[in-house]
C-alpha cells in the first residue's frame, strides 16, 4: 500500500508528436505548467506551430497531501535520449496514441519498447486519442494487438482536452501501481 505520509509520485506522459501530451497535462495540472516548446519546422510530420523539445511539467494534488508530478516527454524519436533521463524515478507511464496516424500500432510499439521496464512492472496505461474521428483500430483491436505481444495493459479511448478523461487514466495507473505494490509486499 502507498504510505500514509504525503508523498510525491512521478508519472510520465509519452507518445508521438501531436498525440496531446502537453494538452493532457495542462488539462489537469493544479499549477502553472512548465513548458519547453519550440517552433515546429517539421510540419510534414505533424502540422502544428510548436512542439515540446525539453519536457512539460505539471502537478496534481491528491487526498492526503500526495502529489502526482506529471512529466511530458518530447514525442519525436530524436529526443529518445531525453526519454531515459526524464523516466528516472518515475513510477508509471501513460502512452498516448493518436488514432488518426497512419499506423498507430507501429507508434505504440516504439513507446512500449522504449519504456519496457515500466511495461514489465505493470506500470503502463495506454490512452488512445482522436477515436471519434478515427474509429479504427478499435479499442478491442488494441487489446488483441497487445495480446499478440503477450501484454495485458489497460487501454482507454480518451479526449485529452477533458480533465475527467485524463484524471480517469491517472486514477487507473495509480490503482494498478497500488495493487502491484500490495501484491509484492
Amino acid at each position: 500500500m502507498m504510505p500514509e505520509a504525503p508523498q510525491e509520485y512521478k508519472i510520465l506522459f509519452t507518445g508521438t508528436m501531436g498525440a496531446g501530451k502537453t494538452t493532457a497535462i495542462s488539462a489537469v495540472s493544479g499549477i502553472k505548467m512548465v513548458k519547453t516548446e519550440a517552433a515546429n519546422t517539421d510540419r510534414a510530420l505533424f502540422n502544428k506551430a510548436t512542439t515540446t523539445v525539453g519536457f512539460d511539467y505539471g502537478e496534481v494534488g491528491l487526498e492526503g497531501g500526495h502529489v502526482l508530478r506529471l512529466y511530458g516527454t518530447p514525442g519525436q524519436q530524436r529526443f529518445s535520449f531525453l526519454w531515459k533521463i526524464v523516466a528516472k524515478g518515475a513510477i508509471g507511464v501513460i502512452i498516448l496514441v493518436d488514432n488518426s496516424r497512419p499506423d498507430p500500432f507501429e507508434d505504440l510499439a516504439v513507446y512500449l519498447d522504449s519504456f519496457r521496464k515500466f511495461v514489465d512492472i505493470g506500470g503502463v496505461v495506454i490512452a488512445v486519442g482522436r477515436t471519434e474521428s478515427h474509429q479504427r483500430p478499435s479499442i478491442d483491436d488494441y487489446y488483441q494487438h497487445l495480446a499478440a505481444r503477450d501484454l495485458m495493459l489497460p487501454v482507454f479511448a480518451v479526449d485529452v482536452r477533458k480533465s475527467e478523461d485524463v484524471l480517469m487514466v491517472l486514477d487507473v495507473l495509480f490503482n494498478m501501481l497500488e495493487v502491484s505494490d500490495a501484491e509484492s509486499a
Partner: protein
Amino acid sequence: MISKNTAQLRQDYGLMLREELDLLAANVGILAAQVCTSDGFEVAATRRSEESHRRLAAMVSSMQALGAAVVEETELGTYRNLIIEGTEGKSMMMAIPGTGGDLLLTVVASAQLLFGIFLVLCKNTCEAMSLRLQAGTLAP
C-alpha cells in the same frame, strides 16, 4: 519565428551559415560548431553531417528550452546562452539574434581557450549570422 522547414533553411542559408562557422572554427581552440533549429534539426555544421551532429542538435534543442524555462522561472529576463564545461573543454549554446530564438549556435572549444575569448568569438559569430540572415530576408 521562422516559418521555413529545415530543408528550406539548409537550402537558403546553409552555405552562408557554414561560411560563418568555418570562420569561427579557424580560431585556435575552436573544435566544432553547428547551427540547428530550436526543435532540434541541424542546419549547418563545420563538419559533414554525422549521426553525432543530429543527436547533438536534438540535445541542444532540449537544453536551450530548459535553459529558457529556468530564465523565465527565475525572472532573469530573456534567455541568451548556456555554457557547459567539462574537464577536456567547454560548449556554448547561443540563440542567434533576429531569429526569435528559432536558430541556435553551438560551439565546442578546448579547455585551453579562455572563457572571455570564447564568449566574444561566439557572440561575434552570432551577430554576423544575424546580419547576414536579415540581409538574406529571413522570412518571418
